[in-house]
């Protein structure tokens, strides 16, 4: 293929994947709200409610507060939504090849995940409101809190893959291509479950959901970071949250549940890709239900210092225990191999 052809196909894929990310992300939010409502004995809004909300926000007036920094205030939401979409381009969706999958690995994804959060911090500081300022500080503290456990998960998985002799262990395609559960022994499975728990707990913080939503805390900060945002800018932040929900689900699926339907049942190529995509979405919904919906309706909000303690002490320890178990498993596996 020529260079122009490659670039052209990448651009086409990018547009398609972005559109898919926006639509699927908004539907995910709708499913989340519906399930949460049913758990609270309510009927809840229809599944397309996030779309209605976005349409409503887009026709509303876009207010920039008097003491805000306009260029930063207005560009933050755009950066947030664009960077969330970019992450999606690196993550495998079912058996579809991700458009940029071969150009970046899990480390890059980890760094990219911080950009929407940083955009929100910048937007919050640029709002010029005490609530948004407090929210922005809290977002930074939360970010520092959850990055460490997340890094443990990523390193643990990649290191175990490398130990098993997988080439390019940080590439998401190789992680997805070699389901980790098949590689490890019984000790490693316990370690993996611990790492899975850590990733599940990092997810609500990445998406600023209860119990880790101190930066937006409705009853304390009246929306925190987003307090001054309205109209189109708020719509963009909502879109960014929607895409990030899909990204976090897809990341968990790619690392821990990468199996595809087509590898179990023989299907013609075209059907297989559609079936895999639907299966992938079902897995994402399941992951989101457990990590986001159930957690956010079943717990009270933490205080910001409790957030840090929970991540740095409790879940960092759980993550390290998982990592140690994986290492022990690898050592045992090698020993067994030698014997």
């Amino acid at each position, binding site marked *: 293929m020529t260079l122009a052809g490659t670039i052209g196909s990448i651009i086409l894929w990018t547009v398609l994947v972005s559109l898919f990310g926006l639509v699927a992300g908004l539907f995910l939010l709708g499913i989340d709200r519906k399930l949460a409502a049913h758990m609270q004995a309510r009927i809840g809004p229809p599944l397309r409610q996030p779309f209605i909300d976005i349409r409503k926000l887009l026709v509303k007036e876009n207010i920039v507060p008097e003491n805000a920094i306009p260029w930063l205030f207005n560009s933050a939401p755009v950066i947030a939504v664009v960077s969330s979409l970019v992450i999606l381009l690196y993550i495998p969706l079912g058996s579809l090849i991700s458009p940029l999958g071969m150009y970046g690995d899990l480390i890059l994804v980890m760094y990219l995940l911080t950009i929407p959060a940083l955009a929100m911090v910048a937007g919050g500081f640029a709002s010029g409101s005490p609530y948004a300022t407090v929210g922005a500080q809290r977002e930074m503290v939360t970010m520092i809190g959850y990055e460490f456990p997340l890094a443990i998960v990523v390193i643990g998985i990649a290191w175990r893959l490398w130990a098993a002799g997988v080439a390019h262990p940080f590439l998401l395609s190789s992680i997805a291509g070699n389901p980790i559960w098949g590689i490890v022994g019984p000790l490693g499975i316990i370690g993996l479950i611990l790492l899975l728990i850590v990733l599940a707990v990092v997810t609500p913080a990445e998406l600023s959901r209860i119990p880790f939503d101190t930066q937006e805390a409705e009853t304390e900060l009246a929306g925190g970071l987003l307090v001054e945002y309205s109209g189109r800018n708020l719509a963009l932040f909502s879109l960014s949250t929607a895409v990030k929900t899909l990204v976090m689900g897809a990341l968990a699926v790619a690392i821990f549940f990468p199996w595809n339907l087509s590898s179990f049942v023989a299907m013609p190529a075209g059907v297989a890709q559609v079936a895999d995509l639907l299966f992938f979405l079902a897995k994402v919904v399941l992951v989101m239900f457990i990590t986001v919906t159930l957690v956010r309706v079943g*717990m009270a909000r933490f205080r910001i210092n409790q957030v840090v303690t929970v991540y740095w002490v409790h879940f960092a320890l759980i993550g390290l225990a998982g990592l140690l178990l994986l290492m022990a498993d690898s050592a045992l596996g090698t020993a067994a191999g030698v014997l």
Partner: protein
Amino acid sequence: MSEGKKSPYIVPIGPTHPALKEPVMFTFEMDGEMIRDVDFAPGQTHRGIEWMGMRRNPVQIVHLTDRICGICGVSHTLAFSRAVEQITEIEVPERADYIRTIIAEFERIQSHLLWAGVAAHELGFDSLLHLTWRVREQSMDVIENLTGNRVNYGLVQVGGVRRDIVPEQHRIIEDCLSAYEGLLGKLLDLFLHDKTIAMRCRDVGLLSKEDALKLCTVGPTARASGVNVDLRQDYPYCAYGDLDVRAILPDQYAGETRGDVYDRIVVRLLEVGQSCGIIRQCLSEMPAGEITAEPKLAKLLAICKKARGEAIGRVEAPRGECFHYVLMEGKEAPASWKVKASSYSNLMSWIPMLRGEQIADIPIIVASIDPCLSCTDRVAVVRAASRSIYSKDDLHRLSVEKTRRLQQ
């Protein structure tokens, strides 16, 4: 942020804010996330109810008192009626006293459940809010059945009550009570054994027993700090004299009293169970007889018009002691009527509770005394868009001036 900066920054909360269910203006002096000092300004929702009352006769005022508070309507009506009954020397029939007690306790049940839901919401625990409010509907349905309305009951009148409790309603009440007694264990488990709630409420918003006594707090706020006060036990009115009511203190459940938000949850939830017991006892011991001392309205109006004298009506509302002072001088309308809602005594306890806590604790601490601000606001000084603060001396001078004026 401000670790580097020496000066504290100001966070205003109010007059309207999601943390506040009613308008009040807080000014927080913050040091990072920590509250260094706090000041608040009530009076944002003054309605002039006493002024309206002084232009109406007691039969009309009873319905006005129903609307002082949306949650504790019976308490205000009862306190006012009891004041007027003392002035006019009307003896309330015993059966009416029992019916008053039953409706007052139902009000306590629904008010405490409403508060528990609000507290859960302030903690970001909306599922618990939906659950408690769903459970609360049962008591609202019974209240609607007994009085004809969900809020603004209009059941109590001067000299008795307006509706009897008929035998068919006994079954409805009994169903509701047994449902609550079954649910109470579950509610205690969901609120008190939840790790996240304990993390947010234990040792937060501390009010020592000394402070509680010094600031004259009342009701569950005082009891949660270990002060053994309950008008139903200390100054029995209505049917409470025949019943064995003991103030609920947190050490009965947890074995210790810390005076934090958690203890306030304990006291209120246990009082729901206590109220169920009181209602059941009232139902079984309710004597037969009249439900009002004077069924003819024209005659009642004439009695009130003739009456002279002053009296105080005290009632233990769900939030604490509710106090009405009435002065009648042989006219249709009372010459003076003063309402002290229970929250008035509790508001000042915010200051020691909030000092030294974090921003995140503001909503739950503010909610923990179950503030009822539109009931509390009796004065608002607004002159040409400017507001001023009156000190104790100013208020004393003003009241002396007014007394002189009245004496002339």
